[in-house]
């Protein structure tokens, strides 16, 4: 019995209790809590040590990723997939041979006909590559030769939450680690004063879907790999700043005392996690300096502000986040995840997309140009795209002036730039209706495998054993798309 009791009080369990009792469980405190207590749910150290972690498997093309996620799923037919047929055959029913049994969402499953809808905007060819880009995105069009457009993305999910979860974690069912966490787990931190995975969110005026912190959760990986949400405004990281009346030297004194107590505890129990905790307290202390510094855009020259657009001085906008993303990348953050909400155009597509595009077009293009002039496009991979595509037919009543498009998983477009990806190419092709892929399909698993390859990781080797089996970001699928790699 005495033995049993001892087992029940293993250091691991004590730590978790301490965690819950010492931190008030607010949603915001999770962000900091994850930094303070790494390795909380770490089960066996052996599976980790079986492979050198924190080092790429082979020489990487990219050292960091900036993912400009367009949450809600922008229509491929108004961005990069130019389909003149839709204009010619406007109002005609989508042929059954094309739809071919594709399941529908609850929103259009009652619909009797599927009238084809023309693109809401004109397309033109741009750059030396002659890439087709819609007039919604004049700035991205201007830099067409820097980007690699993929018109043949496809997914299995048909609703936002499973689709975005699939994109972020490699599984439609939540609970797996986010890809930023996998990168942090596989490559470690480039700058020990900042988290290796950072999240920034913004919201446009278009129809939005929710964003949940599970999208940047570390799942079963060590919680130090969790994405840290940086908020706009006074406190980018909640509870990071000292309370009023506490000076930095007081804080130093406090930390030293806490640390000496923790060290005593470590001598008593020999639990390595206590050491990690001491280290994370120290990191949070350094973040008190490094985070405000990296968030402070006041030193950015006028020319950079103009490049990203005046919006970038308004905290919380996409443009501000894009500029922030560059600063974070400069400071060695491995994975910078932006989300811009409002791309779910089930109706009023024309106006809403114009607004959404205006939010992101200039800043996205500016970010790429800014990275380029800093030589950072050589080792930073920028990705722009949503979680699925949109239907080529109209949702609801047929009205060429004001219509919407439903969710479409079979084909959609994203683009990438830098980080060892070929610039100035368009990859993959869809049929004349923009409905099915006819050439070079890229599944989300392939996309993940390719990103990992660019970062110097073999997607089949980076695994984590949990609940009796080894997990990967790509699970049991995925092929590196070598044609995208420069």
């Amino acid at each position, binding site marked *: 019995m005495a033995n049993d009791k001892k087992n029940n009080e293993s250091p691991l369990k004590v730590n978790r209790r301490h965690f819950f009792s010492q931190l008030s469980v607010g949603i915001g405190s999770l962000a900091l809590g994850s930094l303070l207590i790494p390795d909380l749910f770490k089960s066996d150290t052996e599976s980790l040590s079986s492979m050198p972690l924190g080092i*790429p498997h082979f*020489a990487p093309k990219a050292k960091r990723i900036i993912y400009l996620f367009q949450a809600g799923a922008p229509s491929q037919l108004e961005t990069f997939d130019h389909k003149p047929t839709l204009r010619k055959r406007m109002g005609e029913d989508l042929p059954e041979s094309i739809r071919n049994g594709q399941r529908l969402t609850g929103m259009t499953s009652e619909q009797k006909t599927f009238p084809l809808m023309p693109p809401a905007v004109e397309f033109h060819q741009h750059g030396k590559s002659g890439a087709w880009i819609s007039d919604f995105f*004049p*700035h991205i069009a*201007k830099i067409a030769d820097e980007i690699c457009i993929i018109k043949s993305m496809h997914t299995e999910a048909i609703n936002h939450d499973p689709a975005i979860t699939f994109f972020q974690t490699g599984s439609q069912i939540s609970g797996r680690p986010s890809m930023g966490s996998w990168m942090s787990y596989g490559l470690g931190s480039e700058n020990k004063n900042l988290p290796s995975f950072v999240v920034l969110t913004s919201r446009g005026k278009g129809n939005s879907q929710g964003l949940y912190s599970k999208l940047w959760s570390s799942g079963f990986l060590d919680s130090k790999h969790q994405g840290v949400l940086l908020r706009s405004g006074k406190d980018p990281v909640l509870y990071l700043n000292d309370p009023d009346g506490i000076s930095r030297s007081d804080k130093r004194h406090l930390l030293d005392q806490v640390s000496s107590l923790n060290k005593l505890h470590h001598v008593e129990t020999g639990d390595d996690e206590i050491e990690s905790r001491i280290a994370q307290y120290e990191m949070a202390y350094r973040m008190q300096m490094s985070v405000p510094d990296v968030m402070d855009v006041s030193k950015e020259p006028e020319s950079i502000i103009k490049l990203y657009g005046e919006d970038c001085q308004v905290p919380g906008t996409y443009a501000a986040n894009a500029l922030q993303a560059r600063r974070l990348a*400069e400071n060695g953050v491995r994975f910078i995840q932006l989300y811009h909400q409002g791309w779910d155009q089930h109706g009023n597509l024309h106006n809403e997309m*114009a607004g959404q595009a205006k939010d992101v*077009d200039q800043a996205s293009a500016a970010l790429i140009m800014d990275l380029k002039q*800093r030589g950072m496009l050589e080792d930073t991979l920028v990705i722009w795209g949503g979680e699925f595509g949109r239907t080529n037919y109209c949702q609801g009543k047929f009205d060429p002036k004001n219509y919407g498009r439903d969710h479409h998983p079979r084909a959609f477009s994203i683009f990438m730039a830098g980080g060892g990806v*070929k610039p100035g190419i368009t990859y993959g092709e869809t049929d004349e209706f923009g409905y099915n892929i006819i050439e070079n399909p890229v599944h989300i698993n392939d996309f993940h495998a390719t990103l990992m390859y660019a970062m110097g990781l073999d997607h089949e080797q980076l695994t984590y054993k949990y609940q009796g089996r080894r997990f990967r970001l790509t699970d049991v699928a995925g092929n590196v798309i070598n044609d995208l790699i420069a």
Partner: protein
Amino acid sequence: MVYNNKNRWFDYAIFGLTVFLIFCLLFEQYIELPSVVAWLGRWHPMVLHFPIVLLLIVLFLGLTGRPIPRSLFVVAVLSALVTAISGFFLGTESDSKGELLVWHQWMGAGVALISVFWYTLDGVGLGQKFYSKALQIVLIVLIGFTGHYGGMVTHGEDFLALPLNKKRKAIPENPMIFADVVNPILDQNCVACHNPNKKKGSLLMTSWASLLKGGESGKTILVGDSGNSELIRRLLLPLDDEEHMPPDGKKPLSPDEIKILERWIALGASDTVRLDQLAPEESLVGLVKNLMEPDPLVKWADLPKVADSTLQNLDSDYVTIERVSGNSQALRIDVYLPPVYDAKAITDLKRIGSNIVELDLSGLPIGVEEMAFVASCANLEWLELDRTPITDAEVEMLRNLKQLRMLKIYNTKIGDQSAAVLKEMENLKRVYLWETGLSSAALVELKLKRPNVLIDTGIDEETKAFFVATDTIAKIEDK
């Protein structure tokens, strides 16, 4: 020596086989073998080991003046004859014999005939004469050469070449796809069996024309249709499939090599196309470029060993030291600005200086001391010095960094003198130098001198102006 009956029968056998062998060699072109006999030839690779060993034993005994057991001598000579004859049978399977095979055949026959001659001399008691000894020495040399030539026929001519000589020779700038890329792959993997000497499956892979001609199984390559080309089909078969090429026990081609062959066939299997004639999105371009750029890990293999513990000691909150990948000795170092800056954080890295291939000192208040350290990192390929207080004097110190490929020096106070240093950096591929004191005249001259170096002077004015101009989206909304 006493002759008994049994020995005489062996002598008759030796005599008969000798006559048969000579007959075969003389009337080679008139001989048409029935398939069963040809099949006997397949035993050649097995049988050949016996005469080598047995003859060498007999030769050893003979040269050291010891008595040679007659029965051993008989078996050795018989096996030499059988081997030569079976080898001849095997040789008839290839319709035109290459140079190697012809040599092997005649030397093999020589071994058999000379051993018969020596056996006869020994039989009549002249085994210890000086000319008999000379014969034995010739025999040893001949056995060696026959074996070696036979080995080259089976395993390829460079089978015994030193690993150093086997290294694929560097691919030139803008290579010919067939001559510089495809052919070396075939050379390394296929030609060992598909050459004029061996010609397995009647297929020659030594030249573009012979490759397109095909062999026993018909066309090897269907121009423009890699999926149905016999070559690709066989390469892609499972390893244990009988028809998989290269056959059992030989190193299979790498996936990239197969892809190169596939794309080359799909694009028309031309022998004249060059790299720059391919579309940029063509996957062959990337594959070939990968081959052209040597694997950095190989390049860095000669760096001195550096222990993990050394790295841990030098690593700190503001200095991140990483191995470039896996167990590579090449290091990448990022230094961030601590609240209290001390040059020691950087100069301490001196002991691992020669391992550093990438160094990021962006935004740090570095001075001469730090730059002296940077200048001592001889293997540096990637250097970030942007937003630092460096001037021409510090850039001058970089002159000895011969490996430097990428240099970021934007947002610094460097002037025209730096351009002179940049001009002389042989390996420099990319340099970022906007917002510096460099005059536009110096920039123009630099660009002229180094046309292959990407010189980034910031976002071009036209794009900048476009970004600053009124947003075009508002107009669409107005419509």
